[in-house]
């Protein structure tokens, strides 16, 4: 199991019980998938970018 999620929580002072590890990891993976979807949405699903484009940072730059 990728322990990144559990390590992240430990860094915040939260010890994740072993019984929760897999579900926390599953949620972490779903967050990564959602994150990728949002990144793609910024270019794909919308007519305008999510953020008003700063010069040099808009999608056509």
């Amino acid at each position, binding site marked *: 199991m990728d322990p990144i999620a559990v390590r*992240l929580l430990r860094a915040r002072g*939260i010890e994740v019980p072993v019984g*929760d590890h897999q579900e926390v990891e599953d949620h972490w993976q779903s*967050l990564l998938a*959602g994150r990728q979807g949002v990144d793609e*949405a910024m270019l794909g*699903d919308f007519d305008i970018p999510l953020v008003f484009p700063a010069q040099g940072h808009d999608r056509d730059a």
Partner: protein
Amino acid sequence: MTRELTDHSIAELSSLIRSRTVSPVELTDAVLERIDRHDDTLRAYISVYREEAAARAKEAEQEITAGRWRGPLHGIPLGIKDNLYVAGRVTTMGSTIHRDFVPEDTATVVSRLTDAGAVVLGKLNLHEYALGGTTDNRVFGTCRNPWRLDRSPGGSSGGSAVSVATGLALGALGSDTSGSIRVPASLCGIVGLKPTYGRVSKYGCFPEAWTLDHVGPMTRTVTDAAILLDAISGFDPRDPASVDLPPTTTVGGLSADCTGVVLGVDEKYFFHNVDPEIEAVVRAAIAGLERAGAVVRPVEVRGLRHGDHALTVIDTAEASTVHHANLRDRPQDFADDVRLLLECGELPSAVEYLQAQQLRRRLRQEMQRVFDEVDLLVAPMVPVPTPTIGGSGAGVFSVVTPASLLGLPSLSVPCGLVDGMPVGLQIIGPALADQRVLDTGRAVEELGLLGSAGPTAHLDRE
């Protein structure tokens, strides 16, 4: 006589009380008697204010007799979800940690109900801290769906929904962050309204996720929901998110005439994974509205699928912010599912949270574009069959996102049965179009799709 009284709507009872045909004392006694008879099974209540309710009912009776009728809630017994503060009374949030918590102040919505003369019966069961959808509460008991006792009532406002469905309250308040009013309303065959964000004060409602939290009415009829909304809405300076508008006046203008109302149907988002029998019931309701004069039009809210991610990030991150210290210091005092949810809420980065908020703003613009084309969206409320208690509940909350994330008014109104269990139609409107949403809910009621079905018959045979 008892059952007959508690089977009436608030609107009907209000007239009977005003004309002094029914006494608030008689009515409150009847409801308390039903609580005594059924709540060991249903577990809708966490605490019952028996003596106080009787005293308030007596007071209401005296005022009405003296000609001082306060309005349609005067002498009406109501229940309150136990995440709404009542000064000097234990408010548990359905939790171990707050099991003995006594707030110093009263939630604005509760004050407004009591000012309107309502009789507060007590506090209703919920999923711990409103952080879940079953109301299978390890501390205060497993709340059961009165239509079939082995089925979940949904949550988190499960106690509110069950109490209203069974006459253990004439109406109730719930809270809805990501479906917690509308889903249990749908599963229990009652009406649940999540008003426009900021239209109803959430001062004194223990936060789940403060940019998403709503308080709203749960009732047997749309008219009753309008009565409650009018009583609890309006600006509250103590809630930073409160919209600076006077209380709504929906009940006076309520109309079941949907002639010319343009209903949008987003097949791609709302109908992509619906149980076939539930889909048939929902489509029949939409067809009924069309026959009654509404215009049905296909629409697509672009990017809506990403809203689910944004809602998850915002809801869980804000909830974990609220509970961070207790999660760190006493995690064993949370229910297992709630602890797990809070652990997950610690994971999103600041960038992710802010990106979710950006996405939310962009979706709001997109939704406004859609509402230039249609008046309302209609959809299933719960696209899967009612889960059994202890079951996974997968998919139950899968179409709550748009109204939750964007703070739009959204109503669940019963529109039929599948396998003997109620199905809700979800009606979503633009911000502040609560009246239009309620009007269309009335139009659904006029279709008579639920017939005379109800959950109480088998309870009363017990």
